[in-house]
């Protein structure tokens, strides 16, 4: 495995040197792989990300490789895991690629997956990975957004969200138990912003939402005026012209890398590899940053989202051990602090 990684990393180094201009061919895998992938002609893609976002990814992939049809199954995180487990147990796992936002849920399933590494494996941050089989295909980052029609004196930091002037249901929050990405944010709040941050923030009496999507929609409609949001959940709305401003607060930007792998039972393993190679390539990651508002787990980001200055804002990755161990107790404490009935 190590050797394989080294060879691949070597190949990638060469590819990066060769890829002088944007038009130059990138390394998406050896010609045999591409040939075999084209012969398979399709792959089945299970994802917990939003279908519409992933449609754009598939479209961009098909610009490169129009011969390979990607069939997608999308389900919310917990339901996707149940489906994968049940299908696998019945010997009917249809997925060629499984893509999930909660690494803690994917870890127990790691035996279902085959060895896989992209050509540029060595360029990825090891702390964004929980297994050499599972890759951070997408990396989402938290930002703070506000409705410019309603907020005249906008917040500038995470700590500002505790100010009484934003009290009385002006702030929208996603509740803690909603999934891996939100869990990352509330860990960040307690570990970086202070043990009493939740208490102070909860004192502003925020509106609680089940996930980022209804929160960002409520922000656009003016139901709430300010909300911490995944950048990729609000950025498309700003791009379309909604009265929204987004910023990355100086205390840090919590990020949540996905865990994505190829099951051992994949019926189209070559197409699956090629798809992941492309997603994890600089081209794929650049596309996701620029068009979808993701970040990347590449050691050196090819580009940053608008308004993200790496000199000012530090990326914050949770310690994975704590990510798993603290979960149950901290979510319960969060629920108590926010008076959220679960």
């Amino acid at each position, binding site marked *: 495995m190590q050797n394989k990684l080294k060879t691949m990393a070597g190949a990638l180094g060469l590819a990066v040197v060769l890829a002088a201009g944007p038009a130059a061919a990138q390394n998406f895998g050896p010609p045999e792989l591409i040939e075999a992938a084209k012969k398979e002609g399709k792959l089945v893609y299970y994802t917990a990300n939003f279908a519409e976002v992933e449609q754009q990814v598939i479209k961009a992939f098909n610009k490169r490789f129009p011969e390979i049809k990607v069939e997608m199954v999308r389900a919310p995180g917990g339901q996707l895991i149940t489906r994968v487990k049940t299908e696998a147990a019945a010997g009917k796992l*249809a997925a060629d690629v499984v893509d999930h936002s909660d690494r803690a849920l994917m870890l127990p399933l790691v035996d279902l997956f085959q060895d896989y590494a992209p050509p540029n494996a060595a360029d990825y941050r090891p702390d964004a990975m929980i297994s050499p089989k599972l890759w951070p295909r997408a990396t989402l980052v938290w930002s703070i957004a506000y409705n410019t029609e309603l907020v005249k004196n906008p917040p500038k930091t995470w700590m500002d969200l505790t100010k009484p002037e934003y009290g009385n249901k002006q702030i929208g929050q996603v509740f803690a138990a909603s999934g891996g990405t939100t869990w990352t944010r509330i860990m960040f709040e307690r570990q970086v912003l202070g043990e009493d941050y939740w208490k102070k923030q909860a004192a502003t009496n925020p509106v609680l939402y089940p996930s980022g999507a209804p929160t960002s929609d409520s922000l656009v409609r003016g139901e709430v005026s300010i909300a911490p949001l995944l950048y990729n959940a609000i950025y498309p709305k700003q791009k379309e012209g909604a009265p929204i401003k987004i910023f990355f607060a100086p205390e840090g930007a919590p990020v949540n890398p996905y865990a994505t792998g190829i099951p051992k039972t994949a019926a189209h393993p070559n197409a699956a590899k090629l798809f992941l190679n492309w997603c994890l390539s600089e081209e794929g990651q650049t596309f996701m940053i620029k068009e979808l508002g993701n970040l990347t787990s590449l050691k050196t980001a090819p580009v940053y989202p608008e308004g993200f200055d790496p000199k000012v804002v530090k990326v914050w990755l949770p310690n994975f051990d704590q990510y798993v161990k603290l979960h149950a107790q901290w979510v319960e404490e969060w629920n108590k602090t926010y008076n959220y009935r679960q």
Partner: protein
Amino acid sequence: MRDPATQLQSAVLSPRTDRLRSLLAAAWVLSLLALLAFLVVYPLLMLLLGALTDTNPVVDGFGVFRLSIHNFTTVLTNANVAEALANTLIICGGGTVIAVAIGLTFSWIVVRTNTPCKRFVAAASMLPLFAPPLVAGVAWVILGSPKTGLINTAFKWIGLDFRIDLYTLPGLIFVFGIYYAPYVYMFTSSALRNMDPSLEEASEVAGANPITTLFSVTFPLIMPAIISGTLLSFVVMLGIYGIPAVLGAPSDINVLTTYIFKLTNWSPPLYNTAAAVAIILMVVTGALVIAQQRVLSGRSFTTVAGKAFRPRSIDLGGWRWLTLALAALYLLVVVVLPTLALIIAAFRKFLFFRDLASVFDMRAYSLDHMRSILDNPLTINSIYNSVEVGIITALAGGALAFAIGYTIHRTQLAGRRSIDLLSTLPVAVPGLVVGVAYLWAWIGLPGGLYGTLWILALAFVARFMPDTVKTLSTSLMQIHRELEEASWICGKGTLTTIRSVVLPLASPGVIAAMTLLFVLAIRELGSSLFLYTSNTMVMSVLLLDYYEGGNIGKTAAFSLLQMLLLGGLIGVANWLSRGASQIGTTRS
């Protein structure tokens, strides 16, 4: 088909059945029971098993599970569950009262009076049924949010200080009530249409005024339909997720379904606990169903006898303008406002309104959302799949429901009580959990069922069997035995009698049941979520995707598309049913 039919005839016709005939009778009942066991009992057992363990029966196998009532004790001692249960009963109870009041009034106006434009009113009033609950919730958020709702924006503009707030228990009751009024309407209007008006005439000849007649003759006569409609709308409300999810979330009002959804959506998901909550919901519903059977048993509801009749209208005189005004108000609240909200959402780039004037700022509107959903290849795919599943479900489910309804209500076969009970069970199970139960139950079956549209159709047939059987039964219960007896005396067999007497007379009910089944199948989300695969994506799943992606505009655009499609198809079905009921009337 011939064998069971012949056997049926024998069972009904002569008490002295010979050996072969009674064997065939037993075979018919057994095959129905076997089918119900596969469709209902087996998945529910999987659910019960799930509730009694902490494992996934497919993943961990049947050998290793640890039986315990831990999930039940967790659930029963949780104060939040108790509160969610209380909220559920308050909301569904209040909602049912409103739905029955509106639905019954309305079916009387449409079927029994000479109110102007009633055909149009009748057609338009069914529109809310086509909108999935999630969409209904979204539409009412746009209208009735305390901060940003259009109604409140309008109040502000007029200078009124009054504000409505739908993020409350009364708000939820109101939306549930108006949303399910068409459901009650469907039940009661087909019963009213099939009712012999001579009984009303008799009442009027005896000097009773129309209102007295209504309460002392008409409503008591269609009591089975009213009770079935009341019970079913209450039970269906128990299982609705979309409306309380959208309207209850901002003020943290939980009901059992939203609680169950949370359990399945947490990381890690707690399906076994969710199954336990679902079983509690089933117990509540089971009690209601038994209560209904007690009330209805031993009473005769025959209103269709051998005499020819033509449904008649009561001449309301000047009062017909009042009923028209009522109908118009109903349409405004139930159809026009929510549809308008959806249209605005579908064609407006963003749903932010600075004031009422900005609603009419045409620069804020565009075809972007429509264009983008039509651009998505999944859209066309899902429409095709949904219609196919809908048709399979309506035909198969309709046929099965007729077989079950006939066996329960028109024969004396042993075992029909069990059939009745089994076919009513699925009503109690919320869709999200039953989806997992079907997945657990059917994924392991040999053959390629999993991954096809058929598994979706099977799940829908099973899940909506109570709705279909109940809709059909009210029509079947109204047909007097003498009509069938006349046919037998003329030497016709059971099959011929069913085809030429029962089916034509019950056809408004059959068509209503199949239409309902079609609509429910296309709307159904909970069980689809687990059973669809990459090439069997259906509209409801795609709609949830749009909603979960935070795209109210696209959600609205896609649901408008879905409503148009359903409206068109239902129009055709309605036209067919009118033809059929005319044939029925002529033949009788």
